[in-house]
């Protein structure tokens, strides 16, 4: 084991004790290397010293002062508020969806209410059948338009062109 690796393992051993082959290898290295033994001793004593550090206490009346600041601080939305809001939002959303679906069912036209043109459009029937349907229609206007279009379909030679 190299000294550099040993140094890393020495530090690691303070946080997560080494086991098995790694521990054995480190111990063998420490037994043979005085420099790393000194490092191990330094690292351990420094760690112990840091553990002895005592910082001062917070200033007196910490909570009393904090309470006053909390009262003055802008109120953040509390969890309770958001929880209440989301709990109300769930049934409201469900009701909205149900209402929408209901409206769809009520307002979508049924087959009995479709007009002749809609029935033809949706039915995709044969054009000849469609024409016959139009001609058979009761409305005289439709019949007249159909006759006019039929006149346009006469051969070109049969049309008389007026001369000046």
């Amino acid at each position, binding site marked *: 084991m190299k000294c550099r690796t040993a140094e890393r393992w020495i530090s*690691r051993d303070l946080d997560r004790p080494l086991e098995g082959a790694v521990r054995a290898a480190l111990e063998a290295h420490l037994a043979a290397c005085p420099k790393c033994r000194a490092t191990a001793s330094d690292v351990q004593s420094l760690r112990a*010293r840091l553990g002895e550090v005592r910082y001062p206490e917070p200033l007196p009346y910490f909570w009393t002062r904090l309470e006053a600041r909390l009262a003055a601080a802008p109120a*953040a939305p509390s969890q309770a508020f958001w929880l209440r809001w989301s709990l109300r939002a769930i049934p409201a959303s469900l009701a909205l969806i149900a209402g929408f679906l209901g409206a769809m069912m009520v307002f979508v036209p049924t087959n009995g209410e479709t007009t002749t043109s809609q029935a033809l459009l949706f039915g995709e029937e044969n054009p000849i059948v469609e024409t016959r349907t139009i001609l058979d229609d009761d409305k005289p206007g439709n019949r007249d338009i159909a006759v006019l279009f039929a006149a346009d379909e006469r051969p070109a030679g049969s049309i008389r062109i007026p001369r000046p």
Partner: protein
Amino acid sequence: MDERTIVDQARRGRREAFEELVKMYNQKVFHLAFSFVRDRAAADDLAQEVFIKAYQALAKFRADSEFGTWLYRVAVNHIKDHLRKTARRKEVSLDELGEGPIAVADSAEERERAREEEERLRLVLRVLETLPPKYRLILTMRDVQGLSYDEVAKVLGVAPGTVDSRLHRARKMLRKKLASLVHREGGRA
């Protein structure tokens, strides 16, 4: 009452429960802040700000993690922000470091030993002060405050391997700087 119940009550807006949490953690948060600002009033102010932030963000706290770890994360982020804003480092005030570990000494010999111990401790703290913030932070949390290895990883939001290498570098740096200072001053840490 266990901590989880207290946290739950605090989340529901019970002020007394939050007070309980503050009493449980104010010293730890204060010490973390003090290790950076080295000023009792400034550290106290920072600790109060951390608790205000925590109070306002309590709704975001997920009950599946430890409250202490979460609070530490809030504290670390706030202290980092503070350091970034102030961007100036205060010199260590030796009078503010608090009492050393040995408070009672009877004989003159014991008093002398206690004084030496205290001096060494202050020297270590002075050197700790000079480390880059990320190394100072990890050493303070792990070696001074005694947070567990896993807690440190969670607070910093880093992988265990990163904690390993950062701690190793921090300790190595501290040791080198201390050795060099002791060498200059002709003493022994």
